[in-house]
């Protein structure tokens, strides 16, 4: 049958399943009612140019759902997400779901602009975040959300961490300052060339004055606008009683500037305006590089809290009532539907269900909970509705405690002191002292007069190029970061590369980090021939990891698998699935399921078993197991070679953990750990003075990740884990983890080389400056050259093998 494109979402479907409509002699096809609705709406509003803009992009079929709109008008919601602007309008930050291309952004903005009461709607294409400002007297938020949903998108509120806004603002601020600096430096340089030529060949005083004034005009905004950051930094440094590089930079630049102004006004000597702008601009670029690679503020807590429902159905006297979580008391009965989260800790009073506890344990296999069993908040009810009695209120429930611990850990994250910071402190003090001594020496002993002594002292500060020192770390780490990104290792912050080289302990999570994290078929036994499509269809029904693994296994081994239409499907909790195909009875699950259906079959294995039976006769047996990732053993031994101790932390049973540890040669194992236990173990390591690298993937690892010095997450891991981590391994492989270690050592070496070079440079040129042999041309050249060498050396990392 021919495939046709849906007129709205542009996906292709069989003609027979499409809704066909005729309009203006044109045949329109729609894959679903949703798409049809959106198409008609856009046409009636005159927004059909959307489809022109869409080009060859495809959308998702519009799934329009107007339920739960009320929640956007509730007071609890408003308090949490809605801000009031200065003008008295309401403002909210939304994440728009379903945006695929710029046409989508255009459409959303357009419909919002057209609605009454919306004052401003601005959607960012790259991150799908939208800021909407509206007049709450004219339109309600629920109506705005309804408009967005009506055109086939969905919107969720989010709480923009002020930190994130701050970070962008800071970057923009630096950017403006650098722009001014670069502009002034470039212009001063070509004026300075005339000055230098004049210095050697002589030029008229009046020409020199004009050039001096032009340089003065350009240098002034650079020093006071671009250089403001250094003055501020120096001030805060002095206030806290320590000398930092900012002090050296600002003192040098300011003195050179003041002297140049003096030289310009009195028409004596040379001006140093070019040095002023160059120092400021170069060091500012170094600082900017550091900020550029700084980790964006983690929205961690928002993510966890945002994923938790704010309200729940409380059952009282046979009636259901939606209540905010904070007002629910101990002893209340809450009803939770399939697919929803348990909001408070409690005990099941009615029903039984499979619960996904991966939030707490990291294990993906769901667990059956029956009446009178305890349920923990944060777990997800997978299959059937349950009612439970609340035993702990909001502040004592485990989710709340985890978020508390997490927020604590994130704010108190340890920071390893950077080599460059340490050195630059000493460096600044030394240079300033030398400069003062030089001045005093020339003035009292050399007797060259106040002016000449001052010039020489300033030249010491100017030539003691802080540029190379300032660029030493950021350049090397930035090159390292881009090299890592090429290998699928995402460093969120530059400093991590440097500190990772100093790590002493590697703590690994088991499931998902060392192992693949999902069961896979390790053994299969076909007792009798049968149509594999039957088994495939049965396995496809369930979302249980074992069923999924079977379906995937079949897909890999066989082609021509068909999904048949099964009837009488019944999922039996923690046991398996039964269904009928025509008259054939299908049954797939574990031994418990066989017992329930009175099929006699004996098998004993440590691994998970999946048995498939047709008409109560067993035809195939599969054994499944979560297996260790390839090259895990090699990785562990390599890491040990690098001098790190390896520890495994897992929420799994001790016996399983021990077996894997033995196989891989891991020295230490801690099993049966809850999220808090993992974190406190990291604390213990810290107390022993260790620098810890933690690798994990689940929400249950996130506190430990946040507490560790360097946190590394698997790219497939939970959002929160990715969020708190410093490094993300995009391809989840242990070999890229190994590469990260090697790279960090390489970068650390480059940093040391850079620092070493700039120190050697200074040791050679400072004596020359102290003796008064430095002229402006030489100073400018030497300064640029030293910076270039640092940049060049850093780029060598790019070519190194890791």
């Amino acid at each position, binding site marked *: 049958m021919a495939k046709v494109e849906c007129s709205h979402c542009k996906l292709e479907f069989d003609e027979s399943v499409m809704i066909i409509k005729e309009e203006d002699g044109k045949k329109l096809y729609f894959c679903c009612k949703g798409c049809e609705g959106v198409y008609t709406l856009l046409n009636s509003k005159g927004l059909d140019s959307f489809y022109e*803009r869409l080009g060859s992009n495809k959308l998702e079929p519009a799934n329009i759902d107007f339920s739960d709109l009320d929640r956007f008008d509730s007071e609890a919601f408003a308090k949490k997400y809605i801000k009031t602007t200065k*003008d*008295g*309008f309401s403002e909210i930050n939304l994440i728009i779901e379903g945006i695929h291309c*710029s046409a989508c*952004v*255009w459409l959303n903005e*357009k419909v919002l*602009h057209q609605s*009454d*009461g*919306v*004052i*401003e709607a601005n959607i*960012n*294409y*790259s991150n799908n975040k939208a800021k909407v400002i509206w*007049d709450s*007297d*004219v339109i309600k938020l629920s109506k705005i959300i309804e408009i967005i949903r009506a055109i086939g998108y969905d919107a969720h509120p989010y709480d923009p961490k002020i930190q994130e806004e701050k970070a*962008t603002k800071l970057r*923009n601020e630096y*950017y*403006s300052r650098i*722009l*001014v600096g670069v*502009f002034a430096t470039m*212009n001063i340089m070509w*004026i300075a060339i005339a000055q230098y030529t004049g210095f050697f060949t002589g030029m008229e005083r*009046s*020409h020199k004055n*004009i*050039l001096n004034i*032009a340089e003065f*005009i*350009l240098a002034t905004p650079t020093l006071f606008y671009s250089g403001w950051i250094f003055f501020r930094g120096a001030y805060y440094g002095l206030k806290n009683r320590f000398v930092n590089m900012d002090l050296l930079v600002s003192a040098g630049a300011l003195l050179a500037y003041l002297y140049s102004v003096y030289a310009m006004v009195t028409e004596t000597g040379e001006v140093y305006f070019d040095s002023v702008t160059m120092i400021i601009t170069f060091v500012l670029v170094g600082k900017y590089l550091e900020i550029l690679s700084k980790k964006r503020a983690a929205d961690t807590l928002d993510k966890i809290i945002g994923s938790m429902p704010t309200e729940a159905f409380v059952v009282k006297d046979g009636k259901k009532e939606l209540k905010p979580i904070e007002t629910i008391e101990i002893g209340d009965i809450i009803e939770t539907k399939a697919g929803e989260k348990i909001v408070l800790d409690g005990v099941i009073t009615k029903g039984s269900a499979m619960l996904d506890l991966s939030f707490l344990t990291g294990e993906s296999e769901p667990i059956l909970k029956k009446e009178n069993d305890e349920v923990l908040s944060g777990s997800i009810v997978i299959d059937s509705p349950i009612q439970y009695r609340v035993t702990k209120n909001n502040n004592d429930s485990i989710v709340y405690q985890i978020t508390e611990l997490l927020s604590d850990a994130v704010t108190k994250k340890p920071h390893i002191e950077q080599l460059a910071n340490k050195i630059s402190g000493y460096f600044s003090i030394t240079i300033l002292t030398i400069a003062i001594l030089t001045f005093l020496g020339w003035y009292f002993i050399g007797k060259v007069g106040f002016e000449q002594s001052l010039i020489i002292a300033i030249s010491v500060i100017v030539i003691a190029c802080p540029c190379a020192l300032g660029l030493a770390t950021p350049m090397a780490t930035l090159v390292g970061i881009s090299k890592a990104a090429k290998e699928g290792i995402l460093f969120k912050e530059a400093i991590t590369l440097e500190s990772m080289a100093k790590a002493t302990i590697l703590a690994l999570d088991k499931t998902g980090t060392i192992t693949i994290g999902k069961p896979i078929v390790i053994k299969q036994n076909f007792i009798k021939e049968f149509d594999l499509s039957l088994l495939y269809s049965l396995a496809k029904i369930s979302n249980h990891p074992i069923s999924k693994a079977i379906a995937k296994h079949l897909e890999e081994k066989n082609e021509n698998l068909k999904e048949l239409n099964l009837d009488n499907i019944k999922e039996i909790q923690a046991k398996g699935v039964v269904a009928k195909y025509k008259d054939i009875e299908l049954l797939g699950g574990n031994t418990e399921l066989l017992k329930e259906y009175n099929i006699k079959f004996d098998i004993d294995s440590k691994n998970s078993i999946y048995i498939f039976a047709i008409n109560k006769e067993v035809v195939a047996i599969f054994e499944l197991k979560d297996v260790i990732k390839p090259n895990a053993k090699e990785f562990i031994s390599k890491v040990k070679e690098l001098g790190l101790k390896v520890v495994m932390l897992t929420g799994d049973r001790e016996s399983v953990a021990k077996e894997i540890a033995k196989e891989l040669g891991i020295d230490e194992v801690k099993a049966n750990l809850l999220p808090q236990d993992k974190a406190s173990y990291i604390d213990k390591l810290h107390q022993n003075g260790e620098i810890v690298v933690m690798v994990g993937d689940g929400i249950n690892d996130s506190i430990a990740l946040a507490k560790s010095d360097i946190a590394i997450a698997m790219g497939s891991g939970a959002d929160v884990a990715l969020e708190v981590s410093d490094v993300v391994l995009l391809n989840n492989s242990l070999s890229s983890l190994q590469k990260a270690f090697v790279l960090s050592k390489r970068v650390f070496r480059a940093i040391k080389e850079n620092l070493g070079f700039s120190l050697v440079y200074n040791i050679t040129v400072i004596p020359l400056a102290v003796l008064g042999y430095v002229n402006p041309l030489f100073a400018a050249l030497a300064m640029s050259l030293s910076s270039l060498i640092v940049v060049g050396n850093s780029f060598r990392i790019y070519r190194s093998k890791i």
Partner: protein
Amino acid sequence: MSDNVLILMLGISTFLGALGLFALLWGLKTGQFDDQSKFLDGARFDGEDELKDAIMMEKKKEEALKRKREKEKNYMPGD
């Protein structure tokens, strides 16, 4: 070369450069570079309609503000 020529050359070239710099800074400050792809799409697609839209939004804001002010003026405490 006379002094005036030198002044004129330096002055005009720096001034022109400064104009470009200020335009860039202004764009940065008003958030025009915040979203790279939107910025490029604006150049590709935006036409008269978008300009009208922008004017409409400004008018709408003005009206809403006016309404707000009037409401505040006419506000009478209940008794």
